[in-house]
């Protein structure tokens, strides 16, 4: 099984100002970037925001290779979206939509590349604490986020394995030979993960 860096960069140890910045500030940066993608209507402004975020990513020492790794899997989708929107709504609008998606991806990668997962999970626990009065378990919220971060590369790796396997059998153009095994493997992975968590007593309600 291969694992793939997919959409979000893994944590890179460091001492940059972004590493030292409070989690709340970085979280607000991600939220603001998400909101900006709705508010910004000029592609040049989107490009400027994206350039600024890329600059921050590089200043954090996470590296251009990791930045490209976070964006690369999305390039084919962005091309399709950009061409379609450009055709339907004009080139500036198509460019703005693509750039705004990139803004969200780079902002989220900035958060995950400069924040250890455990710190992220502690932050999620703090955020979810008010829901305890309604019977929610904040640790479960955190666990869900952690598992999501781990599962995305696993499923991407499964897709690459299945694609190779289909290619070896001359079935690369058969969508069923690609989709069905990925679906079945993903369900099996979910079951295994549940079992692994149960074996370690994780995910149980607090005593």
């Amino acid at each position, binding site marked *: *099984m*291969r*694992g*793939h*860096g997919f959409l979000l960069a*893994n*944590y890179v*140890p460091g001492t940059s100002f972004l590493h030292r910045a409070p989690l709340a500030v970085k979280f607000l940066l991600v939220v603001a970037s998400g909101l900006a993608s709705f508010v910004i209507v000029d592609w040049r402004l989107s490009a400027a925001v994206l350039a600024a975020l890329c600059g921050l990513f590089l200043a954090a020492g996470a590296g251009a290779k990791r930045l490209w790794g976070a964006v690369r899997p999305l390039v084919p989708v962005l091309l399709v979206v950009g061409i379609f929107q450009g055709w339907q709504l004009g080139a500036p609008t198509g460019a703005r939509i693509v750039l705004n998606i990139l803004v969200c991806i780079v902002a989220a990668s900035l958060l995950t590349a400069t924040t*250890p*997962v*455990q*710190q992220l*999970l*502690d932050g999620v626990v703090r955020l979810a604490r008010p829901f305890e009065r309604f019977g929610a378990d904040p*640790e479960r919220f*955190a*666990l869900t986020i*952690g*598992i999501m*971060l*781990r599962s995305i*590369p*696993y499923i991407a*790796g499964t897709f690459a394995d299945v694609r190779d396997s289909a290619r070896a059998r001359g079935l690369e153009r058969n969508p069923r030979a690609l989709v069905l095994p990925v679906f079945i493997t993903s369900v099996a*992975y979910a079951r*295994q*993960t549940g*079992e*692994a*968590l*149960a*074996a*370690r*007593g*994780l995910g*149980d309600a607090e*005593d």
Partner: protein
Amino acid sequence: MPAVTFDQVTVAVEQDDSPHPKVLLDAVTLRLDQSRVGVIGANGSGKSTLLRLVNGLVQPTSGTVAVDGDDTVRAVRHVRRNVGFVFTDPLSQLVMPTGREDVELSLRRSVKDAAGRRSQAEAALARFGLLKLADQSIYELSGGERQLMALAAVLAVDPKVLVLDEPSTLLDLRNRELLRRTLAGLDQQIIMSTHDLDLALEMDRVLVIEQGRVSFDGAPAEAVAAYRPWCLNGLDPAATDTP
């Protein structure tokens, strides 16, 4: 040493194509209180079911399993704190992107302070010489490193009993030897299924499982001697199918 007891334990599962349930384990009664217990048997014989009962991952259809007196159904949470479980494939077990994060995840319930958790995780990783690999993606680790990482994550909470389901099956010779040496140095009671008969010979006691029953229970050398001919039976060329 903790005692793991099985009292008339049967595990059966419903079958789609038959009105009769399939019996995975049949009326097994055991008391395991040796430091090292090996479980050998053919694929599908019921080894994994037997091991999963110890951690409460599988519940008996009838009978009871207890670890140090705690019933694995009624006191499952307490049992899981005392029984660590290592799966065959560490990728199924490591649920965080890096080893350090996975070990810290194990500690989240017992150590609330983040700094304390970090230092305990580092100590657990250092114990197995894994500190230099702590921040690497688990996908970048070798099979042996992953298996040791999974072991470190389980041992970080200091369980009394360690259950391992064919831990060396996916490992090469070098990593198998590394795992063997690591396990030999642990204080925990170990209950381990394996197809590695050399590893089984190092146990204090070995159970042979055949079709859901314990067909032999005793000294490792005798267990292996009893298992080998039974397992290889039927491989005679005359008995093979012809087209």
